[in-house]
């Protein structure tokens, strides 16, 4: 007769929030994006997926907001995954500025979430 093996079981659940900017992420709309990220950080969210698949236009103010989100997440011990934009010109700008090296780029939200 065998005895039951003693074991501890722990379940970790990681909270990951996906932000999908729909429309331009630019000097005008970046403020709202920053406010949303700030609100999430205040609610102890530290893992973000930034899904740019629905973002047809991105300027340097929008790019600054994205980097700010990454910095804040990492300061909280979290991280960010970015989903590639569908718009080819936006992809080119991300490559030109080497944002595709700064951010962990993913092809889909599912892939991004699974990578945490």
């Amino acid at each position, binding site marked *: 007769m065998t005895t039951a093996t003693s074991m501890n079981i722990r379940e970790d659940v990681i909270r990951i929030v996906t932000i999908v900017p729909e429309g*331009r992420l*630019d*000097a*005008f709309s970046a403020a709202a994006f920053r406010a949303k990220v700030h609100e999430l950080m205040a609610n102890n969210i530290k893992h973000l997926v930034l899904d740019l698949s629905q973002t047809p*236009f991105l*300027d*340097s*103010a929008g*790019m*600054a907001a994205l*980097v*700010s989100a*990454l*910095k804040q997440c990492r300061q909280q011990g979290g991280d960010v995954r970015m989903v590639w934009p569908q*718009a*080819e*010109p*936006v992809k*080119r*700008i991300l490559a*030109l*500025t*080497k944002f595709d*090296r*700064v951010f962990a780029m993913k092809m889909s939200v599912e892939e991004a979430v699974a990578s945490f």
Partner: protein
Amino acid sequence: MSYQAAPDVNQMADNRDLSSNSGLASAIEPNSASADMIIVDIPADLRYVNILGAAVSAFVVNIEGLVDREATLYNLELAIQEVSVNIATHAYAIYPGRIRMSAALSHPLQQLTIILHDTGVSFNPTEVPDPALGELQEHGYGLFLVRQLIDEVEYIPAAGENIWKLIKNLPISRAA
């Protein structure tokens, strides 16, 4: 990218009529008699700056034989957006003002000349360093993008007014 010290407006103007608008802008803007030219004048407000890039994009969208049309239009719109935001947030940081833009096509080279005029505070863009690409850097991409996406970029400050002059050689397919 070049930077000029304040020019002699009277000398630049030659025989052009400076009475109807600001001297520097009138002196540098292409001849308004040209058929292929637009002028847009907006409040320097982040709610409106997108109008300028959209206007230029619409201005050149129907050019026959334009190569890589989507990317060319996007890059133009982005460069104009960056300059316009720079004007709205820096030149007019203390007091409000307007941005007056002209865009003109020259033939047969299909060279696009864009003039953005403001009456705000001048600065020296050559003192703005390029960003450290690939690093976790938040700011400094705006002028870098303008320099990358536009063939010739010139900033001309003068007493009480400033000019950005952007020249883009549009890629045209000869087969068109």
